[in-house]
């Protein structure tokens, strides 16, 4: 009974879609989280000389919504948020360059500038190592400067400039760490001098709880429809079995 399997793929893909909505809702407070947009598509599997009835459901690669989250003032001078459509370049755990808008920066115990998800922030010369300093400051243009330890105050030395880039949004995909990476074949990133940082603020999550709750309800209802269909297939099966018995 192929139709039973068609309904089954519908229901099982909707469970994945539901997981995506739930994940968005779970990350309603995650700094600079970009919500995923689960989409389903049809996967027709036709054989020659048969009726085109088998159209399975597949869940597409989820695109993320790149709209900016609300800026939340923290007063922490190392917290930065990007004004404009840009990204901070960070180093993922795999050593590859990846992009994020998460800018709750701090200095790691090894003396590198990292963000809240503990990824190394990249400057023009790779990861930014901060020497022992009395003060660290990040300018609006992303320039990191510091006052060396024990120096008379006021003499800031420029360390590096945080790599602020504009990336082709359609070419970005979340990796397993939730960082954005360029998919193969997409245009490269370019540094944009128009991008600037707001300091003392972090970007909140861009999840809209109302939309996600609606998505949750909608998905649950669609799932019930598919389960109802499976029930109908079962009833049809029983009916055909009874016909056999009458014979």
């Amino acid at each position: 009974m192929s139709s039973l399997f068609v309904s089954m793929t519908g229901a099982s893909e909707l469970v994945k879609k539901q997981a995506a909505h739930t994940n968005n809702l779970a990350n309603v407070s995650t700094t600079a989280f970009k919500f995923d947009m689960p989409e389903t598509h049809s996967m027709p599997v036709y054989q020659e000389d048969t009726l085109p009835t088998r159209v399975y459901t597949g869940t597409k690669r989820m695109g993320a919504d790149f709209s900016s989250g609300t800026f939340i003032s923290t007063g922490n001078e190392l917290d930065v948020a990007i004004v404009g459509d840009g990204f901070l370049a960070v180093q993922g755990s795999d050593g590859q360059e990846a992009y994020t808008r998460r800018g709750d920066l701090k200095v790691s115990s090894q003396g590198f500038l990292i963000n809240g998800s503990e990824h190394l922030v990249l400057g023009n010369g790779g990861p930014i190592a901060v020497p022992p300093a009395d003060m660290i400051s990040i300018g609006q243009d992303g320039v990191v400067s510091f006052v060396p330890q024990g120096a008379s105050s006021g003499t800031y030395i420029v360390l590096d400039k945080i790599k602020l880039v504009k990336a082709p949004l359609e070419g970005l995909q979340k990796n397993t760490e939730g960082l954005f990476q360029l998919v193969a074949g997409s245009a490269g990133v370019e540094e944009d001098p128009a991008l600037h940082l707001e300091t003392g603020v972090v970007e909140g999550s861009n999840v809209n709880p109302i939309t996600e709750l609606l998505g949750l309800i909608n998905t649950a209802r669609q799932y019930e429809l598919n389960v109802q269909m499976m029930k109908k297939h079962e009833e049809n099966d029983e009916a055909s079995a009874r016909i056999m018995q009458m014979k």
Partner: protein
Amino acid sequence: MHPALWISKTGLDAQQMNVQVTSNNLANVETVAFKKGRAIFDDLLYQKVRQAGAENGNNAELPSGLMLGTGVRVAGTEKNFQQGNPNRTDNPNHIAINGRGFFQVLRSDGTTAYTRDGEFSISSTGALTTNEGLLLQPSITIPPSSTNLSIGHDGTVSINLAGSVAPTQVGSIQLVDFINYSGLEPIGDNLYIETAASGAAQSVKPAQNGAGELLQGYLESSNVNVVEELINLIQGQRAYEINARSVETADKMLQFITQML
């Protein structure tokens, strides 16, 4: 089972901790030199459900992969070391640090802890101690029957000995500074200890090299902003409810399928 159940569980856990951190901030709204905490949220690893370009049989090729998120976690709580207001108390034993720096105190186990709480008292032996009786380091001893305890902006402690007109210097208060305040570990009693993340304590003189000056007769108030915390509390509660709703929906889906089929 339904993955959404576990994802919403991580959301509930994280929001519960968020409310816990906020409640702790609100409980310490009157604690001297308390520094507010903030829960840091981090999305969990994404699960690669399908690789893009995989063959799907019958010449159907998956046009794109699928990455499913698995929830959220609280990556840590970060203290915000913003300066609290110096409040005048007129008690000569009270000292506020206006700017960067920490007092050093000797813990009972012989290690050093750091605090910005300058609510000092004088022990029976004349030493400056914290409320818990921990000695200020380097220790300052006030001779008996002396008057006019005076602490300068630079930490110089002087007194007038009985019968003497000129002040006598009995020591000076030293501060320490850290490269990364957020790395300090709070241990309660308004004390912090250093960790690998905070970096080693660097000895500094008050009002020099970027260190704060000392204000005698003042106490640094808690830097908790009540309005901000109440908003956090509301947000945390609503986010908790939304995640509970996800649990309910996932549960209903499971219930529906068990009843229907």
